[in-house]
């Protein structure tokens, strides 16, 4: 147990130095001490080459630490039994492109030993979840990048894992897809899953993560809950609907009386993402209505 509850990932002075024949030594991860609690959505942030992916690979046992240690779900990193409860979406979906979506999920399900009826049900659920119903029989080689990310995400969830590693899960996705992925991460959190998110897309992190760690040149430079790290403790934001100009004036006067000079009163900006989503949703609704009218007209 740690201060974050039961920890599912713990690293102790984890260090990785890449070296080899005719290859310069590169310190990719430097004495990393990291703890991820159960049920958290944990963001591992950092610029390119900061060691995020290397840390993930060390935790998955794909590569071996130069020194230090790591435990995942209470077992040493790389333990085969632990992999029954892990899901992994790599930074690009490295899948067998001659298979279609159904076959890919079926293969993964078989490897996990999921019984046939349950596997079939799970495949249908996941394909619907990632929105690939129309492309479920198409070979992955014909998928766009976004579709590949979606099937990659589905295969990472096929075993209903306790701990999910998502490396740049929203890269290549359109805004709708990004929002869906973020919603999915939220849903996973609600189900008590632990998600480790590696990304450099900060808005994604801000939307979904509970805690983050920031890596730079392989070193951990900051770690903590998002609220703690982002909260501006000496400022207060007040959001009120439809404040008129006279009411604004009164409010400024009142605050001046309280000793708060020059308060800033502005209309809040929506994010571009929200605007985009609103427009697309309204267009979709209009299409649906028009289609329904055409159907009704044809029927009459």
């Amino acid at each position: 147990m740690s201060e974050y509850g039961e920890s599912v990932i713990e690293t102790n002075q984890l260090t990785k130095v890449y070296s080899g024949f005719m290859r310069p030594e590169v310190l990719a991860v430097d004495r990393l001490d990291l703890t991820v609690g159960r049920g958290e959505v944990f963001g591992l942030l950092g610029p390119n080459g900061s060691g995020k992916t290397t840390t993930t690979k060390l935790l998955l046992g794909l590569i071996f630490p130069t020194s230090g240690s790591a435990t995942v779900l209470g077992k040493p990193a790389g333990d085969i039994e632990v992999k029954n409860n892990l899901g992994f979406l790599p930074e690009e979906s490295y899948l067998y492109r001659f298979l279609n979506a159904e076959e890919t999920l079926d293969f993964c399900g078989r490897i996990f030993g999921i019984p046939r009826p349950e596997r079939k049900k799970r495949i249908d659920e996941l394909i619907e979840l990632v929105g690939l119903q129309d492309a479920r029989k198409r070979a992955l080689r014909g998928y766009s990048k976004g579709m590949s990310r979606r099937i990659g995400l589905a295969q990472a969830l096929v075993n209903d894992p306790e701990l999910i590693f998502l490396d740049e899960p929203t890269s290549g996705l359109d805004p709708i897809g990004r929002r869906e992925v973020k919603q999915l991460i939220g849903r996973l959190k609600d189900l008590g899953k632990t998600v480790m998110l590696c990304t450099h897309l900060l808005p994604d992190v801000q939307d979904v993560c509970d805690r983050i760690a920031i890596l730079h040149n392989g070193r951990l430079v900051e770690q903590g809950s998002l609220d703690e790290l982002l909260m501006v403790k000496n400022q207060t934001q007040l959001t009120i609907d439809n404040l008129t100009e006279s009411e604004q004036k009164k409010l400024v006067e009142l605050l001046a009386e309280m000793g708060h000079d020059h308060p800033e009163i502005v209309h809040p900006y929506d994010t571009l993402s929200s605007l985009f989503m609103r427009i697309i949703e309204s267009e979709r609704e209009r299409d649906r209505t028009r289609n329904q009218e055409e159907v009704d007209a044809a029927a009459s």
Partner: protein
Amino acid sequence: MPPQADRQHPSGRLDLVRSLHRLFTPSGWRRVAELAVLTTREAVRSRVLVGAVALMVVLGLGSLLWPQASDAGRVIVVQRLCYGGLTFFGLIVAAFVGGSALHRDIVTKRIYTLATKPLSRLEIVLGKTAGLILLLALFLFFGGLITYGVTRIAHLRKTFEGGSYELEVVASTARLETDDPTVEEERLILRQGQMLEAIGKTEDGYKARIAGRHTELAGTIPEDAVRLHERTLAPERVVGGRELGARARGQARWRVGELALAIGELARNETWVFDLPEEQEPVDEETIRTRIIVGHLRHEPVRGVDRTQHQPPRIQFEFFNPREEDPARASKVVDFVFSAREARRDPDEWPAYDYYYGIIALPRRLAADGVLAAEVTDLRPSYRPLGRVFVRGEKEPRWRAGPVRSSVLPEEQATFRTRFHVQARTGLDLLDYAAVTAIIRNPATGEQVERPIRLRHLTVSYVRFPSHLIDPNQGVEFVLTDIPDDAQIGYRADEPPVYLILEPDRFAATTVRSVALIFFQLSIFATIAVAASTVLSAPVAILFTLVVAMAGGIKDLLLEEMGRRALPAAATLQQMTPTEQAWYWIEYVYQQVLIWAAPGFSQFSSAEFINRQWTVPWSVVAIAVLIALGYSFVFFAFGYLFLSARELE
């Protein structure tokens, strides 16, 4: 300084015990099977299987067009080509699919999909290897069906063609026989040593009968083929003289002023024909100094004979010019004792010789027409054989073959041949034979025929009999009788004593067992390729697999070549110069590497059996299984070690 790695950390590097424990569970084998199916499915969808099978179809159909002098020969060629194709295409599939199996997954990072699932690296290597072997099994299944079909077509082809049979022959010599004035018969000796009897000359060419080893066919020799050797066929040049037994062709060449005549196996009453090359060196006008070399003549120990009394055989040769009309000038009898070369004089062993030679002077006239013939007219073994008969403990051995499943049985006129594979010990066993009588009897009707046969040590003798002597249910009964008292005759336990050459099911058995041999050989290549792909890049792994296959295939040749190198004159290693010593050690290490590292793939070839029209025994297949398992295990272990130590970056 970073702290040292925690010793408790498995590091993934070598977790053999746990991996084995996981593997030997139902779920472990299931995971391996899933990965195997995935690997096979990828190759199938990449059209590797279809491509390889299509090549086999082309090869199979092409082999039917291969010109052959006899039906038996055609079947053999078709089988050899098809099995060669199965091995070659299978090797290419194994090298290319296996050589890129893991390396491709690692480079494209698809390995993450596997390595982050509950699959140990042991299971990954095993699954990939099993998938490739499954692919090869599918290829061999379809390729085997094609081979079987093509073999059957080749076998039945004479039926389709009726009595007409076109031959491409290259005749090197011929002789007219005029015993029957109504038929103009010629006997041709083919360059390949096959015998062909031409019965009468027609407008189209020579009407011919082929006496192959297992079948007989009537046909026509095209005039064109015969014309190729018009000089030797011209009747005026083939006069008088004597009949050529035409059993074998010898080799003749001029060497340092003498004529060297080489004979393969020495046997009584056989005639060797030598085409003499043009003289390039001056020789005596009256005589030719001639060296006769007999190869592969070995004396086996004979019980009861003092080996110190052993002498090389004394042999009488009659050399003659087959085209010389005057009998007085046509031949010369030479009686002499061979000298032995390369004799091993180990006191505990009987002398064994690589070959014998003798030098004689032949009259020049015997070789005047460019053809010289020789016949062994007397052989005098230097010791008496110990006479005792044993054939499965019976004086008159009898056995039954059957019931016989054969679609050719209804053909009343079909002729069967039965093979007697005999170990007959009759003194100088290579040079002598035992004349016995075989009684072939139908057990249901009691009908029987008697056939004289000659049994020679370590050779196959055949007897021919009509098909009505075979009862479909009870088979056919054989009795050997009139066995000389001084002969020892036994049968090899691993061979059925009776063999119906035309029994069609033999093709199925031959195909299944030959394909099984190829399968186990290819399994070794598959394991090598997958193991190589764990550590080498795909092109290098493919090349490595092909090199190992080639080195294994030519291992015997390489070792033999090395053995032929002249050794330094020094008697011991210490007496050698440093350079000689260095070469000696290089050769020694090279030999040891070849012997121990290169798989001996000769055990996986069914060519020898096919050439002799034998069925591959199951015992040979069993040995192939053991060898394949041994090599595969070693290479698989390397593959596992390499992948376990490898970081999947």
